[in-house]
């Protein structure tokens, strides 16, 4: 170890610990699998803003931390070379700078925030020549239902999408609040019963990505993950065709069966989907799925759902 490192370790061990943090963070720029390894345009744009904001903040934070450590060390009581200035309690110049520079940075960051929030609004479609694929998402306890209204099939706990094509999600929840999140594709969005949220994502290239719920929703929450497979166009058509050969169909009664609380559900598909099913769930025509013990539920207005 160099003498410089030894000097730092002796005098300012805090500095090592502190500099380790941003160094680790920065070295993750190519760390695979997470939000800093985006595989789609939305994720890439989000990650870029995150890293830019980090860069802007580091410009302020790193000198500040260094100054803290240097001042603390230089002005230690045993240092006779440091000038003791008990009268130094006010400085207009310093005041201007410490209010002014953060305000300027925040103004800049404010611009990034305003523009970024509008550009990356989940409701905003992705500009692309390809026609978006429609997927309707229902979060249940504790699995994910993906309905493809145009293809007329549905899938549980596995989301297959064509690569390079934007996907337009309409999301709702069958019961409690969840959050649809595929880290490598970007933005997450909440799912709530009785409401429809929207999201636009796309995968650039074929690949397999991890998806999960990012909002704790009960006992089976930890198993509420799903696989996202981005496949070439023809493979997608192939998958749809295979799905149309599945055993079960998704209608009201099989939906109600899916409603019952269960976790660790292995992925499977439905060969056909009741046309108005998603809207029935989203508008509460189909009542919210039950919790653990229907007898203990409080007084409701509607008759209890059929078992």
């Amino acid at each position, binding site marked *: 170890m160099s003498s410089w490192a030894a000097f730092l370790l002796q005098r300012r061990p805090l500095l090592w610990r502190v500099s380790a943090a941003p160094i680790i963070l920065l070295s993750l720029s190519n760390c695979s699998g997470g939000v800093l390894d985006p595989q789609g345009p939305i994720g890439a744009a989000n990650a870029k803003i995150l890293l830019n904001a980090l860069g802007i903040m580091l410009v302020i934070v790193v000198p500040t931390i260094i100054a803290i450590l240097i001042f603390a060390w230089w002005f230690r009581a045993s240092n006779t070379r440091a000038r003791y200035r008990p009268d130094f309690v006010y400085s207009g110049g310093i005041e201007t700078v410490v209010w002014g520079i953060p305000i300027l940075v925040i103004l800049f960051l404010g611009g990034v925030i305003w523009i970024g929030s509008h550009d990356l609004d989940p409701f905003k479609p992705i500009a692309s020549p390809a026609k978006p694929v429609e997927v309707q998402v229902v979060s249940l306890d504790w699995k994910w239902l993906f309905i493809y209204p145009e293809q007329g099939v549905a899938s549980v706990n596995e989301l297959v999408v064509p690569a390079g094509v934007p996907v337009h999600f309409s999301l709702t929840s069958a019961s409690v609040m969840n959050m649809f999140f595929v880290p490598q594709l970007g933005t997450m969005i909440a799912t709530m019963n009785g409401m429809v949220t929207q999201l636009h994502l796309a995968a650039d290239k074929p690949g397999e990505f991890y998806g999960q719920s990012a909002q704790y929703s009960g006992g089976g929450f930890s198993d509420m993950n799903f696989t996202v497979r981005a496949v070439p166009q023809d493979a997608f058509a192939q998958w749809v065709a295979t799905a149309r050969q599945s055993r079960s169909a998704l209608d009201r009664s099989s939906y109600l069966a899916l409603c019952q609380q269960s976790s660790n559900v292995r992925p499977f598909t439905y060969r056909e989907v009741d046309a108005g099913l998603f809207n029935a769930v989203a508008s509460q025509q189909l009542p919210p799925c039950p919790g653990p013990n229907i007898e203990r539920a*409080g007084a409701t*207005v509607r008759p209890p759902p059929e078992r």
Partner: protein
Amino acid sequence: MSATDTPFERAGDPYRVGRSRDWVSTGAGRGHVYATGHGEGGPASKRVIVGYGFWIFLLSDIVMFSAFFAAHAVLQTATAGGPSGRELFNLWSIVAQTAFLLVSSFTCGLSAVATEARNQLWTQVALLVTGLFGLGFLVLEGRDFAGMVMQGAGPDRSAFLSSLFAVVGLHGLHVSAGLLWLGTMMAQIFVKGFRADILRRLVCFNLFWHALDIIWVALFTVVYLIGLGR
């Protein structure tokens, strides 16, 4: 302020505000020669402290009501296919409730006048009348609620009704608590007379009772008048 100031003088005005030059040589004497009303004359009197604290409490109570008002604003239209305000509100009952509260506020003010005059009899009479009108208010409100529940328009029917019962009921709860307090105060005045601490509590009670009236005005406007327009 110059470099030759003693540490003591420097210590007194480290930020060179310079306003407090008059203290320098008085030693252990008076701090300021005047009390500016910003608490510089030392601790305030008990009467001021109690009144001030109670005002802060009232402000916090108004914040709590605001949360319920906000909820009502959000849930006004969430009738879930059930009855809305227009179908439910009995305007005459509400007008009567408002009148009762206003009169009780007036008689409460009269009791304060009687207290100033240290007149036991009229203080008790005015407080009693206040209480009776308050009770009348509660009876009318209770009847309204019972009627709505009978019609199947109870708080469990829809979010709108939940919010209605909650915000109006919260006010009613405050009125009930106020009546309990009123009874206790009447007993105390009767037994102990117009002692200083009892007078302070009466001030607080008066503030409370009038504040309830003000909240009722807001409630009346937001919940009933605006609700009737839907």
